[in-house]
């Protein structure tokens, strides 16, 4: 029996984790489960692909891989730009759709609207890019043995490092900055936040930008390590929600821990039961959490 599934699980966990952090923040601060979050991930990946292709065409040498990684300068620059584009898309969606429903309708209408929006965005991407999978780079990576019969590729190591950095940065933002305190305040009590001088509308815009940025990074990483296709974000949605709920809505470390658990669970399932059952793991975890402790690992009880 090989322990390689531990490495795969860690990678899957990291990929889910980047998105789960964004979901837990938008869920707790905006107050609803955004079914379009998966599409932010997909959109970010395609935006990066498009911009990277353009950069690669016009800037000589930008489409060369950097060292042993499969990422190129073009992709790095493109993802920075794509974060902006995805953020703009999220803000536009809020302006056109969610803002009109906030405060006037029950939160569940926002979920319903996000469902419709997700369908439209996903189909738009399918219209523009077809459903054929595509990739950032064509080169295969060499997996290096690291002992105990485990192998990792340079991309995978980079993913872990990037995820750790994002995790720490987001946690620091939430706990040590005024912006983070404002977001936590709005998550708990928007009315009191206003009284304390917080511009709630502005804070909401920041949350959308942050969520979209995290989703975009997640999409790029997923595109680099796996592939890019219109359903990539949608297929991640259930694991994202399950991870956020497992960790406790609003907890950044919790969402990441939840993602790791689900990632490892999925890898173990692939190893011992077959790859076709991978998608069921998130559902099983979700049901288990809802039965045992609905507030999640780091959520407040009751």
């Amino acid at each position: 029996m090989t322990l390689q599934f531990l490495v795969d699980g860690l990678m899957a966990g990291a990929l889910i984790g980047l998105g789960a952090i964004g979901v837990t923040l938008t869920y707790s601060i905006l107050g609803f489960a955004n079914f379009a979050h998966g599409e932010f991930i997909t959109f970010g990946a395609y935006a990066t692909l498009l911009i990277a292709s353009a950069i690669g065409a016009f800037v000589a040498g930008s489409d060369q891989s950097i060292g042993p990684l499969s990422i190129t300068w073009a992709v790095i620059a493109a993802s920075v730009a794509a974060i902006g584009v995805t953020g703009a898309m999220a803000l536009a969606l809020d302006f056109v759709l969610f803002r009109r429903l906030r405060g006037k309708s029950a939160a569940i209408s926002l979920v319903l609207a996000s469902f419709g929006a997700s369908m439209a965005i996903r189909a738009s991407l399918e219209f523009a890019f077809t459903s054929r999978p595509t990739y950032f780079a064509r080169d295969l990576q060499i997996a290096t043995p690291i002992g105990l019969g485990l192998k990792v590729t340079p991309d995978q190591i980079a993913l872990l490092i990037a995820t750790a950095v994002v995790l720490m940065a987001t946690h620091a933002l939430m706990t040590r900055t005024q912006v983070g305190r404002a977001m936590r305040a709005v998550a708990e009590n928007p009315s009191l936040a206003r009284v304390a001088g917080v511009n709630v509308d502005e804070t909401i815009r920041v949350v959308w930008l942050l969520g979209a940025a995290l989703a975009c990074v997640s999409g790029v990483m997923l595109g680099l390590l796996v592939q890019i296709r219109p359903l990539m974000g949608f297929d991640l949605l259930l694991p994202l929600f399950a991870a956020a709920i497992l960790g406790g809505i609003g907890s950044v470390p919790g969402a990441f821990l939840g993602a790791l658990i689900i990632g490892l669970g999925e890898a173990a399932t692939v190893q011992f039961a077959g790859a076709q059952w991978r998608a069921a793991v998130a559902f099983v975890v979700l049901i288990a959490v809802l039965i045992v402790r609905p507030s999640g690992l780091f959520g407040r009880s009751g």
Partner: protein
Amino acid sequence: MIGPLLSVENLVAGYEPGLPIVNGASIHAGKGEIVAVLGPNGAGKSTLLKAIAGLTPVSGGRVKLGERDITRLPAHEMIEAGLAFAPQTENVFVSMSVDDNLKLAAGPLPRLLRIERIAAMYGAFPDLERQKSLIAGRLSGGQRQMLAIARAMLVQPDVLMLDEPSAGLSPKFVEIVFSKLAAIRQTGVTIVIVEQNARAALALADRVYVLVQGRNRHEGRARDLLDDPVIAALYFGGVETEAEAP
């Protein structure tokens, strides 16, 4: 300054457009004055404060702070205008630490000033300093009220409004809170409080308004109302039933 600092005239406010809860209420408070708003349950006292603070939609009337018309000012800009509000329940962020609650309130201030003000606030509220890392949800009712006041006072407002500061507090803590408010008034801050505990409010306030069904029903000096048993019986349920209070 000449004239009232806070001036509310014929305010009409409520959540449903056709169903105002505040229906033509007027109050005035001068600099350094303590004004109490009393009245039976459902009179619209809380809604009045919320309307002034910008939390409840206003459909008529006017609110002025000094020369400035703040009737339709967004709630989050009130602090900067000089008006602070401590709501009744849910008056602190229970998921954040005491320190974070204060840091949040100090938000708009530049960093050095923020540190200085928070240190000064801890000086005025030593109990809070001792518990600065504690999650606010773990504070006792009295300490939460103190934190709510500290939070509101952090940006040094001209007017401080409190909605039932004595709610749920033991008599000992009511006394502590109210003497704190008296001390705050000594620094020149105008205070407006809504209260069910009429006795404590009358002891603290300079002037009193009585609101019934969203309108003014009575106005006068606190001392005068304290002495009038008929008025007391009519409006101040709190005075009569103090013996029954838990």
